[in-house]
């Protein structure tokens, strides 16, 4: 097995025969990987997964999770250390090697061909798919496999028609059909609705009953880890911080292991000091880029000192709502008032000048210009401000001073104000964007997915800043796909489904189940939906 020759002699069926419950299927010993530039991404990591076990790997961004995952899947090779399958040493020189040896990967960003059918996607690259495709035969086999694990998916449907949860099922089935015995799942619940998450967790439990080893890699969904895993390995700064049985763990303990310091879970939310209405949205409808109705007769009011939490699964109109409010998207019907004045058709700059602040979800595409320095990026919200612009000439010194203030106040880890924005990590970039918007003291803040993809520390910080804006009397429209976060920060919750605001619920009357049902379209008010 240690030969670096061709692998034709490997017979997966024989290799994986007679798995005993609890047997160690995969073990990684002393995995070390150093990147050019000296970053020690993995430092002597030991890890193993047994049959019928869900062994979660937990860690913040930059803790070395991705590197370990890529090593286990053959995308990169470790500098030191070895991987053993059932005690035999193996070398993965590519993902193809890993797949052949029985490692399956369920990607966070789905690796599926949207235009092709489910069964075509499952067959793509399968060694048995040679010459003429036997679709019918394959369909029967995959259907039987799906039956065993309790998955339901239409094999003839095109992948682009599927929900995120269904796409994930396709990836799982694809891996299992390829003969995976160890299933690596990258952020398995990240794009799912609460209902889909529940289904996935049940499936993972069922899979683990079938002599598979399941290895979910998770950044911050601690409840998920506690719910499904049998063991959990926590990574911090490239090392194993701890490896423990899940029954001995709780959220607090795991978070501390991840971050290396105690973590406050409940961001302290002072009671609301609500004032005058700042923004009034009245019967607004708008279309998406594709031309279909993305916002359907949406109405709400947000007062000064109030956070409106817009909850929903991606693609239900939240994005268009943010753009309509920021002036980036035309309104088909209805009107928008800011401080009692109509701004429905006001241009973007006029809105900024009247106190609208917007932090887009796409930090690198819309929120910043990667090739520009931090000073120039901050200037994007100040170039028109007479304090920083004299007769068309920007006041460089003042802008640099402002940027330095923002970097300090928002604790941005950056070498200085003149580095390019693209060199910053996601969390630090988000802090710069929030900083430049909040430093304008906006009356209305539109925060689209402000904490998405950030690690625990940065998430906490961003949430704290939203609450500070609220305390200073801003009206905040906070868009998120994470219901826990919505419930923690909002004063009023606005669940969105298919372009409508299903209901406006005061936070003290909101519960996760009802809102989960509303954003999944299964609430009884939504009659006639499938």
């Amino acid at each position: 097995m240690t030969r670096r020759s061709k692998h034709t002699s490997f017979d997966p069926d024989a290799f994986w025969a007679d798995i005993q419950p609890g047997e160690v299927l995969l073990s990684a010993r002393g995995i070390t990987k150093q990147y050019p530039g000296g970053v020690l991404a993995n430092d002597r990591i030991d890890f193993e997964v047994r049959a019928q076990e869900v062994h979660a790997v937990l860690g913040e961004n930059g803790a070395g999770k991705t590197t370990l995952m890529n090593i286990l899947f053959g995308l990169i090779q470790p500098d030191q250390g070895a991987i053993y399958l059932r005690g035999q040493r193996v070398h993965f020189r590519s993902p193809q090697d890993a797949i052949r040896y029985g490692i399956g990967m369920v990607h966070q960003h789905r690796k599926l061909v949207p235009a092709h059918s489910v069964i075509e996607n499952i067959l793509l690259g399968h060694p048995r798919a040679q010459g003429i495709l036997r679709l019918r035969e394959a369909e029967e086999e995959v259907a039987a496999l799906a039956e065993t694990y309790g998955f339901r998916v239409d094999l003839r449907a095109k992948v682009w028609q599927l929900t995120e949860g269904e796409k994930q099922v396709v990836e799982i089935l694809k891996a299992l059909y390829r003969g995976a015995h160890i299933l690596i799942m990258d952020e398995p619940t990240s794009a799912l609705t609460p209902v889909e998450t529940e289904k996935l967790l049940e499936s993972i439990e069922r899979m683990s009953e079938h002599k598979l080893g399941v290895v979910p890699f998770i950044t911050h969904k601690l409840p998920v880890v506690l719910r499904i895993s049998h063991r959990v390995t926590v990574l911090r700064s490239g090392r194993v911080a701890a490896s423990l049985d899940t029954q001995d763990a709780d959220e607090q303990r795991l978070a501390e292991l991840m971050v290396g310091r105690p973590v406050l879970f409940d961001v302290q939310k002072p009671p609301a000091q609500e004032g005058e209405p700042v923004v009034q949205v009245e019967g607004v409808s708008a279309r998406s880029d594709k031309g279909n109705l993305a916002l359907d007769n949406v109405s709400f009011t947000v007062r000064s000192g109030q956070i409106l939490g817009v909850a929903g699964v991606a693609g239900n109109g939240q994005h268009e709502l943010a753009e309509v409010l920021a002036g980036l998207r035309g309104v088909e019907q209805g009107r928008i008032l800011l401080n009692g004045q109509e701004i429905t058709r006001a241009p973007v700059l006029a809105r900024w000048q009247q106190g609208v602040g917007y932090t887009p979800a796409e930090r690198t595409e819309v929120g910043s210009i990667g090739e520009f320095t931090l000073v120039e990026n901050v200037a994007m919200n100040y170039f028109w401000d007479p304090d920083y612009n004299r007769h068309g000439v920007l006041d460089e010194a003042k802008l640099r001073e402002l940027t330095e203030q923002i970097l300090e106040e928002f604790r941005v880890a950056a070498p200085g104000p003149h580095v390019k924005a693209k060199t910053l990590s996601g969390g630090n970039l988000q802090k710069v964007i929030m900083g430049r918007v909040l430093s304008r003291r906006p009356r209305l803040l539109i925060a689209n997915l402000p904490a998405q993809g950030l690690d625990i520390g940065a998430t906490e910080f961003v949430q704290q800043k939203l609450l500070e804006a609220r305390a200073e009397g801003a009206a905040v429209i906070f868009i998120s796909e994470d219901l826990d976060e919505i419930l923690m920060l909002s004063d009023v919750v606005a669940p969105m489904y298919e372009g409508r605001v299903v209901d406006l619920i005061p936070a003290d009357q909101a519960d996760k189940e009802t809102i989960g049902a509303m954003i999944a379209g299964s609430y009884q008010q939504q009659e006639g939906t499938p």
Partner: protein
Amino acid sequence: MLPFILRSLEAAMIFTFAGLGELVNQRGGILNVGLEGIMLFGATLGFVAAQTTESYLVGFLVGVLVGGLLGLLHGVFSISLGVDQVVSGMGIWIFSFGMTTYIGSPFTGPLGMERLPTVLGISPFFYVAVLLAVGIWFVLTKTSLGLAIRSVGETPDVAEVSGIHVARLRYLCVVVGGMLAGFAGALYALYYNPVWNYNFLMGWGFISLALVFFSMWNPFLLFGGALLFGLLWQLSLNPELLLPGLFSRYIWRMVPFAVTVLVLVFISTDWFRARWGATRPQALGQPYHRE
């Protein structure tokens, strides 16, 4: 009337060969706008080779070979070097236009060989073109090779993770596409219009290119489009056979190009994009780099 139809079928045959080659290219994600150039080369070198050796076989072989080589050249630029595919394709066309004019000029004039035989009044290659359309449709939709090609054209990174060698498959597509284009060119110069003169191809390659977009990458629709354009082309050459006395022949000569423009406008409309745009290979024209 009958000769008119037979001639338009033969024109359709040439559009079909060239278009099918480009279709295979594009399903694999490579756009080759140099199709006209490859046809010019296949036609000119095929013509010269056939005339000097007095062998049609040599002429066709040379046409196919040079087509494959130019396809390979486009592959080196657009697959290995990651050059913008439009730039590479235009380069091939400009290069070919100049080179073939230079090479072909001394051979200006008729081929001067016995005509190739016909079957039921048209070239036997017409039937080959029909079979080829069916064959390519079959390979693309029913075989693992076709699935791999389509995946490479849609989402090459997904294909790569699934164990498909993206670059190798794309090379296969551009070479096959080039060979078919070279053959189409040779067929034009050795059979359809066996005379070499300046700019003899008159944009047939560009029409074939437009047909591929028009066909939504479906070989059967491509063949249908080829029939239509074959008819239009024939109408532009001999309108008096069908509609004597109507319009000047200069207006008729413009018709295929005007229709090409209309087709391109039509397929650019939102309506068309919404309905049919989904069939476009998503990675078409994008260089792919392994991570």
